[in-house]
């Protein structure tokens, strides 16, 4: 009787049913692929039977040993690991130093054009990171690599390899790209900082330097830690920059090493590498959780009356503004301008009228070997553009709606373990860098399994992977929207006599319209510029703009690649700005997407 009663109460509404369906769906889309790739790393893959001495599918430690302890382990794992870590740490140090100063200038001083800079200095993050990589090659490429010359080479200066490729440029570019993180997170913490804390120290006789060191910095620690950890996690999965700039000098990071192993069908080793990247990602966020908890003990919550007084820069006002301007020039203006100019110049770095042309955009019958028309007249480009819109669009709409449903199920279901499971499973992809996640998808869906056909080469695999990858943001957005709404408006309708579907149609969805739009728009924009997920899963016929541009890079169609990247960057930039205007949200909140 009791069981029947419980069942009746639970199933009276589809809430729990929705929750159960969601749980099964995400277990399949998130957990199963990861298990699959981890199994790949300890089971003999097709074709490796002689090496491992077992049947296909038999247990083996061959791949683990190969990756961690064989003669080629250095090239495959240890060197890339060292490169990843060292590049990430150097990039973090630079962006903390540069971003810290800029954050302070923007949020606490009377620097000229503060408001403008507050947005302008964030732009590097809105652009895809490898935009900078292409701009860098356009400028610094030397004779080590064929294809169109770099500008410096073209005017007779040969940049050394260390400047043109590898560690130095990758570090600089990642630092530039992630500095906005520091400006945003550190800056918003600075803005919330109560000037009265500073004043108290000053009244007690402390000088500015001491105040900064003893009062402000310690209190800023949590914000700084989060920003640093976020950057580190992003660097772990960073693929595009390292691919463009590292390849010519065999400078591998974990993400590119994984890519190469997948490319050369080393599925087992790829599994080990993907697992290693995942473990690093999870460890990082655990460390973050621990550090932040430690730091929270003295976190200040700005009271309503907290004051934010701007420091007067006096005679430093102009130089300070110059510094911010300089960052903008190097991180935004110069790369974008370089890319743009490269697409309208026949010969690199020759600034003569007759050298300018629109051929690479709209020309016909060019005297090139292939791609004999401008990019805007190339069908492949439009197909990639269309793919981008509909693949990313479908995935974003699906994950936005699923996110809201997950939020609904989590908040409403009376069955708590289900709610907890849904929260955790949808958050999990956050811990897994995109490229490792893509590898996991490849591992699961490359062949037909049971009723599910082989999805590799279809758009379905892209949509599913992207959806799962976006779930942490989508489910969080849905959850917070549902939490904010509370259950009362719905209960009021219920008491008034409205059944479930009517409540959904007339109360819940209309009220959540705004957050649903945000929940679709933000992932859409970040999906447009995403690369690492697609690069593993896309084939030429399912190319999106980012992978298409990478293919163009591979074929050395420099101008065309730059043009496509420029368009992606434009879409991402204006999309973000428009979304920000439309939804009146602050970009800081949508960070990480």
């Amino acid at each position, binding site marked *: 009787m009791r069981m*029947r*009663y419980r069942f009746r109460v639970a199933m009276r509404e589809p809430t729990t049913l929705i929750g159960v369906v969601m749980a099964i769906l995400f277990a399949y889309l998130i957990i199963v692929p990861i298990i699959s790739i981890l199994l790949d790393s300890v089971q003999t893959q097709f074709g490796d039977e002689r090496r491992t001495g077992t049947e296909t599918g038999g247990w083996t430690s061959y791949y683990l040993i190969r990756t961690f302890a064989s003669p080629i382990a250095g090239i495959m794992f240890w060197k890339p690991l060292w490169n990843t870590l060292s590049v990430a740490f150097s990039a973090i140090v630079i962006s903390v130093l540069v971003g810290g100063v800029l954050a302070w200038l923007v949020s606490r001083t009377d620097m000229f054009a503060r408001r403008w800079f507050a947005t302008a200095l964030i732009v590097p993050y809105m652009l895809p990171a490898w935009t900078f990589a292409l701009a860098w090659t356009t400028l610094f490429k030397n004779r080590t690599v064929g294809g169109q010359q770099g500008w410096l080479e073209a005017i007779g200066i040969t940049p050394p390899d260390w400047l043109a490729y590898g560690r130095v440029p990758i570090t600089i570019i990642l630092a530039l790209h992630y500095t906005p993180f520091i400006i945003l997170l550190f800056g918003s913490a600075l803005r919330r900082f109560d000037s009265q804390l500073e004043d108290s120290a000053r009244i007690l006789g402390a000088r500015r330097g001491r105040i900064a060191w003893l009062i402000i910095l310690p209190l800023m620690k949590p914000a700084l830690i989060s920003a640093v950890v976020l950057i580190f996690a992003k660097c772990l999965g960073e693929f595009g920059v390292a691919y463009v700039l590292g390849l010519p000098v065999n400078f591998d990071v974990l993400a590119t090493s994984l890519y190469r192993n997948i490319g050369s069908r080393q599925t087992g080793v790829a599994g080990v590498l993907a697992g290693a990247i995942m473990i690093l990602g999870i460890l990082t966020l655990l460390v973050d959780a621990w550090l932040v908890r430690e730091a929270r003990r003295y976190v200040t919550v700005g009271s309503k009356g907290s004051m934010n007084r701007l420091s007067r820069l006096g005679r430093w006002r102009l130089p300070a503004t110059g510094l911010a301007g300089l960052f903008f020039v190097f991180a935004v203006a110069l790369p974008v301008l370089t890319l743009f100019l490269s697409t309208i110049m026949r010969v690199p770095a020759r600034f003569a009228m007759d050298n300018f042309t629109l051929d690479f955009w709209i020309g016909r019958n060019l005297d090139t070997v292939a791609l004999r028309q401008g990019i805007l007249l190339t069908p492949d480009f439009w197909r990639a553009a269309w793919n981008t819109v509909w693949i990313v669009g479908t995935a974003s709409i699906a994950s936005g709606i699923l996110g809201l449903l997950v939020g609904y199920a989590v908040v409403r279901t009376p069955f708590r373990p289900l709610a907890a499971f849904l929260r955790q499973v949808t958050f999990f992809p956050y811990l897994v860098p995109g490229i490792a996640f893509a590898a996991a998808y490849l591992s699961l869906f490359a062949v037909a399994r049971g009723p599910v056909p082989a999805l590799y080469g279809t758009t379905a695999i892209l949509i599913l992977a992207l959806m799962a990858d976006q779930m942490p943001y989508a489910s969080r957005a849905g959850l917070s929207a549902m939490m904010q709404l509370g259950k*009362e408006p719905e209960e009021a309708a219920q008491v*008034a*006599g409205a059944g479930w579907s*009517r409540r959904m149609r007339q109360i819940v969805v209309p009220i959540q319209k705004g957050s649903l739009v945000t929940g679709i728009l933000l992932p859409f924009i970040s999906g447009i510029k995403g690369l690492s997920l697609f690069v593993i899963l896309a084939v030429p016929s399912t190319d999106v703009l980012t992978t298409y541009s990478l293919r163009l890079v591979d074929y050395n169609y420099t101008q065309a690649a730059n043009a496509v990247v420029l368009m992606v960057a434009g879409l991402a930039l204006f999309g973000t700005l428009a979304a920000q205007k439309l939804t009146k949200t602050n970009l800081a909140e949508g960070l990480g997407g």
Partner: protein
Amino acid sequence: MPGISLAKVQKSYGAYRAVTDLDLEVKDGEFLCLLGPSGCGKTTTLRMIAGLENLSGGSLSVGERVMDCPDKAVFVAPEKRGMGLVFQSYALWPHLTIEQNTEFGLKLRKMTKSERQKRTTEVMEALGIEEFRDRLPSQLSGGQQQRVALARMLAVNPDVLLLDEPLSNLDARLRLEMRAELKRIHAAFGTTIVFVTHDQWEAMTLADTIAVMNDGTLQQLGTPDDIYERPANRFVAEFVGSPPINILDFGKSGESGGIVQRARDYLAQHHPQIAGAGSVGIRPEAIALVEGEAALAPGAFGAPVQVTGVLPTGGSWIVEVQAEGQAMFINTHVAPAVRTGDKRWLEVPPRALSVFDAAGSRIATADALLSRSAA
């Protein structure tokens, strides 16, 4: 109109028992207040009546119809119970105008459009929100929103109207107005109303019957006068009333000669039939101050006190006294003729003594004895 009956109702969340063995009858057309401190289970009870929470045990019926009974595997969904519920936060639908909010429930019932509009207008007029019909809830003040929340529920003529602290978000003046309004609505519509509040004055002024709850159990069910004059136990006595009731606790009598000892002696001397007294409660307004022991009325309880403070509260005064080692409050509506430091005797008529046993329950037989002695 049907009454509501709860029999042995239980509600637990895991190991936590929110409501235990609750038996409660709400008569047809009655205005019942569920009163208690926060976390006492009153809102949970209301939500169980509405069907927003299901029972863990016992049964709940409205009129003849069983609404919720785990043992019989019966559960009627909230949308099928035909009740009205007003939330503390009002829970107006932010995307619908006042008119649409009010009309919502009617749309779910089979009604022609003209009937619907007639009814909507009628209710909006009755509650004085007609002029805001095209506005959105966010454009209304708290009191106006409150009226909309009421109108929305009244529009469908519910058999039972449930109110969850609906006045607690209003300022004092508005609250007073809305109380009067609620009483008027109750008289006009004849609806059975269950009203949850932690505010004793609200309960006193509004209710026909008050159910005082604590720790998930019903402490007392009675009229406002009953609750105040004859609290069933010490919890009710201390929860209701401001300034609070003065308790002389026999369990913690200090040195002999204290007021507690005096009270004990008084009971033993005057009312030896009362056995097992654990404490005595005296309402502040039942206490008078007299010049000395000689001035005490015959049979009255008395004790020497020293005035430690006179606090005017506008129209009445609270006199704070120290009575042989225990602070006590006296409430009076006549300007007290005493000043801080004065020495007096307090005088309490026997029928104003509430006697509780050691466990805190009222000794009901004592009431009759005490009031007879006054006659």
